[in-house]
């Protein structure tokens, strides 16, 4: 473990250079998180359906701006930890309370992955709502011997944390009646 601290500052810039060109890899991994919210699906969608409004409920997001919630719409998400996620909507389906999107250029400072796509869906559950946020991503270093911080495991941990913390923030925002 101690060794990796020594290696990291050297390995990271190299890996950044290598993966920016690849941008994806041959073996994808799953990320999947869900949460139940005590509110109607429509009430949840009112908050979560605004693609560029993620800054209003995701605790890790410092700010977000975008071009609109529609097919082809984009958002630029700046994380508190540094780094930005530039994402674009593939399909925006308000009637299904669902949208799917994918990332543009990788930013390993934001998330240690080289590429991802994801789907966000709000559906009825009991007298409340269920929110599912799931996707497919490729590790930060798509080569055969990725460093620990850019491995499948590192990508899984980071993506699952980003999604689950986001959903907790959304729940708090909706159930608390106001965005963060």
């Amino acid at each position, binding site marked *: 473990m101690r060794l990796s601290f020594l290696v990291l500052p050297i390995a990271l810039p190299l890996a950044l250079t290598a993966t920016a060109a690849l941008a994806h890899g041959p073996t994808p991994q799953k990320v*999947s998180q869900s949460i139940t919210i005590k509110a109607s699906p429509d009430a949840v969608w009112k908050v979560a359906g605004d693609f560029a409004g993620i800054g209003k409920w995701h605790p890790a997001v410092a700010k977000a701006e975008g071009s609109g919630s529609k097919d082809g719409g984009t958002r630029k998400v700046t994380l508190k930890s540094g780094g930005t996620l530039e994402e674009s909507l593939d399909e925006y389906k308000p009637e299904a309370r669902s949208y799917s999107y994918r990332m543009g250029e990788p930013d390993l400072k934001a998330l240690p992955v080289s590429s991802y796509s994801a789907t966000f869906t709000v559906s009825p559950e009991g007298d409340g709502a269920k929110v599912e946020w799931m996707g497919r991503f490729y590790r930060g270093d798509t080569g055969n011997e990725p460093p620990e911080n850019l491995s499948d495991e590192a990508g899984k941990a980071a993506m699952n944390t980003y999604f689950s913390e986001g959903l907790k923030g959304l729940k708090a925002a909706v159930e608390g009646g106001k965005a963060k």
Partner: protein
Amino acid sequence: MIRRAALSLLLSLVGLPAQAGTVYVASQQGAQLTRVEAGKVAGSTSVAGAPATVAAGGGLVFLTHPDGQAITVVDGATGQVLRRLPYRGQAFGLAASADGRTLFAADWSGHRIDRIAAADGTLEASAPTGRDPAHLVLDRAGRLFVADRESHQVSVFDAARLTRLATIPVGTAPFALALSPDERRLYVGNVRSNDLTVIDTGGLEALATVPVGAMPYGVAVSPDGARILVTNQHAGTVTVLDAGTLALAATVTVGRYPEGIAIAQGRAYVANWFSDSVSVIDLATLQEVTRLTVAEGPRSLAVAAEPSPKEETR
């Protein structure tokens, strides 16, 4: 050539009469090869970690392991793992000759194509491709077509010598490709431009590019050549196009993150990567008739060739 073809016909008839039309499904995270016969799971085999692409030929089934620097060889009839061929790169796309003796593997991060002896893994020839070669197909005339994902082109090689015959620009990020049964057309799914490029394999040029769904990741053509089926990974659907007019014939809802698609005996099989299932679509009605549960992360499918005199005499 004719003697060799006759021999391979003989071998395929004698060795494996029962398995023609068997569909093989490779599950990446589950590290399994599943055999599907007549729309039902017939058996499964544990294989080495993270198989990506499956190909069939000569009664054998082959799997690439991009992270494991290997290709696995499986007996198609029994599902038994026969051997592991070491591979020096990140093998992703794979094609097998009809007799199962020769493999063509795309090295994703090595940006090249390799021809390999299936018996022992000997590297017979190698040639550079564009950036990040993904899937590839072999035609009966001995040509190899490779989707160069990050170069937005299809590379065409003489399979015997691995010399480049042509480079054909297509849409953005081509990934999967399929030949029409008469091999006059090659269909290429472009992952980032969400469309399908139609290539004339005679003139080796693109004829048309038509929209499909979000993130097309798999392509197959019906046995009569009349319909093109494209999986849309993001949309969770299969787009069915009329091959003559390239007009939309149907959109079939399948599982989440569908990837590979293969057609056998009147049915299309779709690997639903996220849902850990295979959708079975009736080609006559274009309806999903059942969904088979398989090991985690099914990505790729291959069909054991049905012996046909036309194929064997080429």
